[in-house]
């Protein structure tokens, strides 16, 4: 499919930011509009999980339309927990494919710092099952601990394979000026960091961050005006069980298998065609599980890839050259958009020191919850 292109992209630096949610959204939106050399769009779609809970602010899509002088454009906010960003892109994509819009500004934004960590953890944990999970103190990190322990038990993987993903993603983030953490960490430091959800440690878990990312999507009428278009050629999405214990194998996300299959089919591509991938490593174990469920590696063997250097920037399948959620940071709803910003830069050859040589086809995977909803995009030149 070559009917929708990314005409422009941009983002804010992720991290603990002084600015409020509107300032962050505006910065990313204007960076994307400037990159596209456009000042009008038919619609704004804002991906945002919990502005009300984190900041007490609602109605940000309309506020943004007014602030950016885009009135009377269409506008709404899309919520799909930690996949709100990818869902916003999907709504923009669907709007263009339906013929309703010629251009859409997509912004993913989250302002998370400024409240106690336990409160932020509870806001995120509210997506878990309200009777069978949440009351017990179950959080997203709890699922990561469950998954990591079971994965090690089933496949004989050593704990180090998780720590090595944190080390790799920090190494990549050190070359990304937009990343929350821009410093290399040693494997020793990761192995000795405090346990957060046994067996997982501090460097296995993404931080709480503020930030925003934006994309301008255009349809056929406008693509010819874009100098260096990156096409969204494949899209797939699938939901999965609410309670994680209901999955036949808690180390497999069936929804991601379905979403990936849909995306490959739409793009008429296969696993071997992917030059670079941005995965949803909210927890290091998820990068392994996702790389297997997308079909890059066989189930139970994905942990070997990081040990063999396959997923490094100069490896056969670079995963998360941006630093991923671990190092770039995870302002929940900005993530799914930022993944496509990174892939756009990679495909245009603008990724600087973290550039993947000759990248022409990229794949992103954004997770809602622990794979309660998986969204996959394939982009190409």
């Amino acid at each position, binding site marked *: 499919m070559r009917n929708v292109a990314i005409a422009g992209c941009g983002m804010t630096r992720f991290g603990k930011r002084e600015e409020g949610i509107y300032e962050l959204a505006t910065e990313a939106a204007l960076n994307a509009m400037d990159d596209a050399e456009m000042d009008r769009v038919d619609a704004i779609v804002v991906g945002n999980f919990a502005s009300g809970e984190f900041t007490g602010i609602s109605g940000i899509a309309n506020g943004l339309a007014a602030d950016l002088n885009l009135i009377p454009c269409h506008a709404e906010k899309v919520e799909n927990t930690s996949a709100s960003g990818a869902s916003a892109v999907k709504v923009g994509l669907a709007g263009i494919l339906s013929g309703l819009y010629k251009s859409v500004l997509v912004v993913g934004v989250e302002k998370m710092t400024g409240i106690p960590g336990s409160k932020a953890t509870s806001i995120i944990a509210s997506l878990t099952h309200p009777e069978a999970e949440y009351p017990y*103190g179950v959080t997203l990190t709890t699922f990561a601990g*469950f998954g990591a*322990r079971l994965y090690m038990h089933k496949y004989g993987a050593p704990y180090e394979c998780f720590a090595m993903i944190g080390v790799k993603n920090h190494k990549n983030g050190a070359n990304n000026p937009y990343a929350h953490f821009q410093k290399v960490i040693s494997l020793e430091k990761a192995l000795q960091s405090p346990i957060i959800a046994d*067996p997982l440690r501090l460097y296995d878990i993404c931080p709480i961050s503020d930030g925003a990312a934006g994309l301008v999507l255009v349809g056929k009428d406008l693509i010819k005006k874009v100098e260096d278009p990156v096409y969204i050629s494949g899209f797939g999405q699938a939901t999965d069980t609410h309670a994680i214990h209901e999955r036949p194998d808690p180390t497999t996300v069936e929804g991601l298998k379905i979403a990936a299959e849909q995306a490959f089919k739409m793009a008429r591509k296969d696993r071997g065609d992917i030059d670079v991938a941005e995965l949803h490593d909210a927890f290091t174990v998820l990068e392994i599980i996702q790389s297997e469920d997308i079909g890059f590696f066989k189930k139970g063997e994905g942990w070997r890839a990081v040990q063999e250097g396959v997923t490094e920037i100069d490896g056969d399948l670079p995963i998360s050259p941006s630093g991923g959620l671990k190092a770039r940071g995870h302002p929940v709803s900005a993530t799914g958009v930022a993944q496509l910003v990174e892939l756009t830069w990679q495909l245009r050859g603008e990724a600087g020191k973290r550039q993947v040589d000759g990248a022409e086809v990229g794949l992103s995977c954004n997770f809602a919850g622990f794979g309660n909803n998986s969204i996959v995009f394939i982009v190409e030149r």
Partner: protein
Amino acid sequence: MIRAFKCESCGILMYPKHSVCPSCNDRNIKRVEISDEGTLLTYTLLYALPEGFEEKPLPIGIAEFDGVRVTGQITRSDNLNIGMRVKAVYSKIREVNGKELFGYKFKPL
């Protein structure tokens, strides 16, 4: 005993309750009691606690009872193993605004 749910049409057991049977789409779902002795499938010791929890670590696990899986707290944090036998005890799991919440705690056997 553990309170699970059963589809009256196809007979499958489930937990939590679904309004529509995940197996046959029937809506006739009834509460049933199943064995409270099961097997620990996986677990973690949580050190990053959500609001309303004080004591670290918080041991939480998934256990299987008569083929039905349940998420619950565990009564201890040491000497835990995947595959160990546990008994589910219905007890206090959390206090929210002075109100006690009850649920399953797995006691290793």
